[in-house]
């Protein structure tokens, strides 16, 4: 069929109507035979068929309490870590267990700072590299290829940490693999480096009237999804590794040398329902001023890790006002809330005699233990612990109410105000919430605690970033002591704010993040920038603490960096995109994001990867969409999130 672009609107509307009616004519229930089993396949229609995105009509398989055949068979993750830079290849294997052609659609997570750079579709022995295009153009190409019966795949970004993969025209019994490669920087705190890989998108709550949510379907409690995950991390820490562990998974560790480790996921722990976390400790000063640089024809890129000297801790702390905000929504029911309560109780017990505090809970609404901060007397702390013990989870995650309650709470101007959010971050309106924190922050600092097995790290890291604090994460399989103690390490030592850098004659531009965040002892900040020339310089970092200006030096040798890494240009571009989006992604910023993403070949809100196999057209009508449901994150209850009780 030729595509007809009529100048006559009525005719176009009439033709579009025909397309919709055609799809509506499909029976609502059909039977299929698969390997001798009778399955009931439910066919539903959402949206129009002609221009549908990944959320069109879908096939969904219902079976009584047994494994359901679904397109995503397996995910293979291979990561190489070089000092603080991770290079990760994720291969998703889609197969077609049905008797007709299908389009597979899967919503999946990646780290929130992932610079997704490479995309390859494999059909049999043939590998087809995808091309980066503007999002709308990539979608048009994909839809056209799908319509004409060509195998094609499309990768789009829904959030910085949520992506949708669509694979069109998978023939019965055939398999198409899609490999994605991304780079990211690892998290460092107190001499400990953390690599993480999310395996599932937690169920997001969208407030009434919010239309920008990412719909994800979930495997029901009476279903089992057969897909699994294999994961290998090859670590080259650059310095001796003192201790290495995974608090989330059972792993096998090989140590080819003192600075190297090869970590493989145990065959018994391959269910993709929780974040994979790997931590290793290195000497405290090993990451104090790590420098990576990479030079290209038109200049170079650098990554500099800076942290203030421990002597900053000698400055006496101000009296504190601690506001603890606990998410009591339905997704926190059970283990997550119990973990949050334990963490909060430990926080309360660590309050000093000069501190004041308050506890706020929120779900559909927010309420507080009292109407103002109270002194941290033993009696008040006991009362708060009893209050926290009595809290129950129910309802939606109206985080806006929690933020307003906490940041609008009466503040004592003579105190250093810390607002600590304890939540899984399962909301859909991330950007609105970050904007709200920024707008209402005042003199407070936000320290976010991610609680759960598969936390929305984009939100929690974002809240800490705009809230001039830091984020910490507590999995369900680990003690909350580490994260709580780290919080107190941060709040007991002053932060260096209003950071300025004298680059010592080095030609530097486009430093990200901008503005530079406050510096905490033990919490290095990773910054990226572009440079010209070659030199060894002393960089001077200064900031304000306790009303006075303090300065420390960082030796930078661009000719002999600790690491030369090809990914630095991509990582810089990714950091720049994040800065631009934080400005609001208005038209001008959106244009700059798009140009940067296209120039560096990165997936973004405005750019996508598309790959088409033009060599062969599959036979018959284009297939039915099969949406791959995700597993519920470990510890999260289906009934209180996506089930009937979810508002």
């Amino acid at each position, binding site marked *: 069929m*030729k595509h*007809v672009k009529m100048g006559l609107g009525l005719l176009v509307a009439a033709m579009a109507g025909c397309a919709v009616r055609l799809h509506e004519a499909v029976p609502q229930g059909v039977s299929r035979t698969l390997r001798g089993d009778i399955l009931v396949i439910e066919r539903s229609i959402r949206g129009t068929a002609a221009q549908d995105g990944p959320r069109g009509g879908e096939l969904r398989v219902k079976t009584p309490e047994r494994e359901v055949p679904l397109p995503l068979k397996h995910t293979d993750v291979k990561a190489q870590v070089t000092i603080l830079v991770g290079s990760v290849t994720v291969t998703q294997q889609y197969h077609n267990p049905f008797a007709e052609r299908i389009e597979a659609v899967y919503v999946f997570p990646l780290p929130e700072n992932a610079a997704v750079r490479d995309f390859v579709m494999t059909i049999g022995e043939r590998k087809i590299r995808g091309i980066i295009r503007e999002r709308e153009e990539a979608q048009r190409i994909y839809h056209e290829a799908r319509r004409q019966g060509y195998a094609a795949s499309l990768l789009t970004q829904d959030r910085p940490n949520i992506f949708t993969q669509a694979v069109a025209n998978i023939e019965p019994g055939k398999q198409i693999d899609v490999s994605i490669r991304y780079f990211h920087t690892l998290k460092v705190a107190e001499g400990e480096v953390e690599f993480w890989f999310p395996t599932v998108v937690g169920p997001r709550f969208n407030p009434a009237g919010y239309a920008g949510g990412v719909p994800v379907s979930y495997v029901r409690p009476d279903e089992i999804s057969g897909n699994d995950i294999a994961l290998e991390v090859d670590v080259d820490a650059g310095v001796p590794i003192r201790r290495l562990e995974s608090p989330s998974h059972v792993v096998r560790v090989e140590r080819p040398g003192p600075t190297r480790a090869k970590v493989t996921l145990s065959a018994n722990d391959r269910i993709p329902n929780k974040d994979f976390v790997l931590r290793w400790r290195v000497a405290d000063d090993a990451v104090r001023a790590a420098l990576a640089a990479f030079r290209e024809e038109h200049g170079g890129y650098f990554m500099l890790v800076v942290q203030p000297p421990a002597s900053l801790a000698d400055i006496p702390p101000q009296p504190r006002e601690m506001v603890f905000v606990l998410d009591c929504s339905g997704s926190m029911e059970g283990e997550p809330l119990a973990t949050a309560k334990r963490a909060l109780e430990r926080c309360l017990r660590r309050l000093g005699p000069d501190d004041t505090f308050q506890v706020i809970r929120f779900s559909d609404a927010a309420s507080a233990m009292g109407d103002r901060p109270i002194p941290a007397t033993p009696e008040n702390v006991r009362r708060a612990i009893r209050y926290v013990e009595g809290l129950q989870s129910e309802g939606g995650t109206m985080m806006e109410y929690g933020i307003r309650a906490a940041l609008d709470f009466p503040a004592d101007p003579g105190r250093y105000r810390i607002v600590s959010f304890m939540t899984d971050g399962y909301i859909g309106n991330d950007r609105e919430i970050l904007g709200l924190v920024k707008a209402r922050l005042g003199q407070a600092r936000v320290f976010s605690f991610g609680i759960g097995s598969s936390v929305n790290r984009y939100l929690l890291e974002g809240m800490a970033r705009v809230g001039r604090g830091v984020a910490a994460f507590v999995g369900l399989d680990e003690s909350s002591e580490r994260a709580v103690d780290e919080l107190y390490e941060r709040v007991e030592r002053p932060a260096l704010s209003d950071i300025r850098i004298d680059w010592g004659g080095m030609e530097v531009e486009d430093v990200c993040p901008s503005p530079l965040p406050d510096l905490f002892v033990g919490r290095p900040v990773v910054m990226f920038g572009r440079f010209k020339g070659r030199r060894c310089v002393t960089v001077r970092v200064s900031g304000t603490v306790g009303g006075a200006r303090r300065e420390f030096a960082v030796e930078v040798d661009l000719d002999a960096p600790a690491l030369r890494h090809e990914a630095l240009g991509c990582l810089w571009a990714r950091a720049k995109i994040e800065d631009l989006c934080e400005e609001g992604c208005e038209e001008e910023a959106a244009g700059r994001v798009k140009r940067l993403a296209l120039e560096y070949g990165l997936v973004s809100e405005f750019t996508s990867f598309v790959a088409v196999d033009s060599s062969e057209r599959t036979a018959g009508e284009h297939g039915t969409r099969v949406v791959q449901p995700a597993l519920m994150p470990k510890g999260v209850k289906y009934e209180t999130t996506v089930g009937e009780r979810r508002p």
Partner: protein
Amino acid sequence: MLLTAILAGVVSVRRPDIVDAYRVALAGGDPEPVARASVQTMFLAVFLGVTEEKRFAVVDVFVDSGDAPLAAWQVEVTANARIVGMEGEPVPTYDPAALQGGRIVLAAFSTAEKPPKGRVRVARLHMMEAGLPDYAVKLVAAAAPGGRRIEAKAEIGGTR
């Protein structure tokens, strides 16, 4: 309005167009009947604002290194069509900064002990075309094992 719709339906049926004629000619056949058939509906298409159908096709890129083994190559391809994928062994990479419309700079290298000589298909480009396709290729660089630069020429093979 009804007549317009009917006419649109008529011309929307896939008919041979000039590209089909061109391809017949490339394959050594007689393009005239196909070309004649293609222009018969042209006036209707113009009148009704019918756009060219998007077609998917593959285009092979060859590098001829003569007697020298080809271990690394880089070419620039320009086309009045959209590149929607690329394959090869090894899979070529491309420079996103140089990707503009139908222009792409792609490259690959092989560490195989005995890289091929002569005319080698180095890449297959997957294209989305509309209208008469026009392709051009320019060799940017080629090298033998060890990195020695070699003389070579690049060309576009047949499309289908």
